[in-house]
C-alpha cells in the first residue's frame, strides 16, 4: 500500500493495523465506511477498463469456436431431432464452444495481470501493479521479484480452477 496515500488515515497511525495491504478490505476491517466507499468507487473505473479489454478478446474467441461448433454434425443432428433452435444454440453449440475458450482463458488472465501494471499507473491506484512499476523505476530488485512471483502464483491458482471447471463440463476428462 502506498504509504503516502494512507498516511493520513487515523487507523494507519496505529502502525500495525493494515493487515491485508488492500485499502478496501483494510478499511472494512476497521469499519471506516467513508474510506471503504471511496476505495470502492476508485475501483470501478480501473476494473471496467481491464474488463473491457478481456471481454473483447473473449467475444472474439467465442465467436470463432462457436462458428466451428455450429458446423458440426451433432448440432445438425439436434436440429434433425426437432430440438428448438434456441436450445440447439444454448445447450449444444454453446457448451461445446466454451471448451476451447476455457483452455485459453488462462492466457487471458495472464494478459489481464499484465494490464494491471499499466492500468494502476494510469488511475493512480495503489496496488501491486503500481508497486511493481515503482520498484522498476527505483531499481528495487526485491520488489520486482516479489511482484512477479505473486503474479505467477495467481496464474497457477487460476489455471487449476480452470482445469477443474473444464473437467466438470467435459465428461471425457477424468483426472
Amino acid at each position, binding site marked *: 500500500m502506498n504509504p503516502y496515500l494512507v498516511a493520513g488515515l487515523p487507523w494507519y497511525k496505529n502502525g500495525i493495523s493494515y493487515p491485508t495491504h488492500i485499502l478496501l478490505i483494510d478499511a472494512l476491517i476497521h469499519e471506516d465506511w467513508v474510506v471503504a466507499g471511496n476505495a470502492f468507487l476508485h475501483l470501478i473505473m480501473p476494473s471496467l477498463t481491464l474488463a473491457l479489454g478481456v471481454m473483447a478478446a473473449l467475444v472474439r474467441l467465442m465467436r470463432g469456436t462457436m462458428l466451428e461448433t455450429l*458446423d458440426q454434425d451433432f448440432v445438425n443432428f439436434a436440429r434433425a431431432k426437432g430440438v428448438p433452435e434456441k436450445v440447439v444454440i444454448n445447450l449444444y453449440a454453446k457448451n461445446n464452444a466454451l471448451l476451447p475458450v476455457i483452455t485459453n482463458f*488462462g*492466457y487471458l488472465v*495472464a*494478459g*489481464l*495481470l*499484465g*494490464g*494491471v*501494471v*499499466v492500468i494502476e*499507473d*494510469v488511475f493512480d491506484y495503489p496496488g501491486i501493479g503500481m508497486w*511493481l*512499476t515503482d520498484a*522498476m*523505476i527505483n*531499481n528495487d*530488485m526485491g520488489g*520486482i*521479484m516479489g*511482484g*512477479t512471483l505473486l*503474479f*505467477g502464483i495467481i*496464474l*497457477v491458482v487460476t*489455471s487449476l480452477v480452470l482445469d477443474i471447471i473444464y473437467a466438470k463440463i467435459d465428461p471425457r476428462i477424468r483426472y
Partner: protein
Amino acid sequence: MKEKMSKKDMTDKNEIKPDRWRELRLSLQVFFSNKAAVAGLVIFLFYFFDALILQFFPQILPFKHPYSLTPNYADPIPLPPSWKHPFGTTYPGVDLLRAVIKSIRLDFWLSLEIVIPGAIIGLIIGIIATYFGGWIDEVLMRITDIVFSIPYLVLAIAIGYVLGRTLNSMMIALILVWWPLYARYARSVTLETKELTFIEAARASGTSNFKIMFKHILPNSLPPVFVQISLDLGTIMLTISALAFIGFLPAANLPELGYLTSLGYNYIQTAPWAMIIPGLFIVLFALAVNLMGDGFRDVIDPRRRSEL
C-alpha cells in the same frame, strides 16, 4: 511422337498458368470481399509508408530532427488544434502531428523486430517439439508454459531491469516473452499437419527428419502463423506503448506513441487532445492489423473460402 509430346507439354504449361492465377484471384476475392479487412490494410499501409519514409528517406519530409522530438520551451503548455498545429501540441510545446509522424517509425519497426524473431524462435521450437514428441516435447513445452504463464508485461519489466533500460533490452525482453506464444501456436498447427499421411509417406521415401520438418511441415504451418503475426503486431505495439507509458523508455525526447501519451497525461483535464490523439494512433494501428489479420484468416480458412 516424342517431339509432339514435348510441344504439348509446353502449351500445357502455358495453359496451367490461368489455373494458378485462379487460386490467387480467389484469395484476393475472399480478402477484398471483407470490407473491414481492406480498411485495415489501407491503414496498415499508411503506417508502413510512414515508417518506411522516416527510416530510410527522412529528407523527403521537412523535419530538422526526424529521430527526436522538438520541444518548444517558450510555449510548453499544450495548445488546442489550430491551423498551425492541426493536432494541437503537447507538453513541452511539441507539435503533435509531427510528433506522431515521427513516432510511428519507432513503434512500427520495433513491433516487426520483436514479432519476427519471436515467431521464428517459436516456430522452430514448436515444430521440433511436435515432430519428435516424447520427452523433447514435454521439456520444451513445459519451459514454454512457464515463460508463458508469467504476465508478459511483468516479465518484460523484470528482464528489462536485468538488462538495463535501453531500447535494445526492451526489444530482447519482449522477444523473450513473445516466443512462447508462437511456440504454442506452432505446436497446435504442426500437430494437425503431423497427423497427415504425407509426412509418413516422406519418411517411407527415406527423407531425413530435418528435411521433413523444413520441406513439409514448415510450409504447411506458415500460413496460419503468418496470420497470427499480422494479428500480433497490434498487441506488440500496445505493449511497447504501455511500457513507454509507465516510464520504460531509455531517453527523453524519443518519439514514441506511448511516451507521447504519457506526456499529455498530466494535462488530461485541461488539454484532452494531448493524450487522446497519440492514444488514438496506437488503437488505430491495433485495430487495423486485427481487421487485416481477420481478412487473411478468411483467405486461408478452407471453410470460409468455399462458402460465400
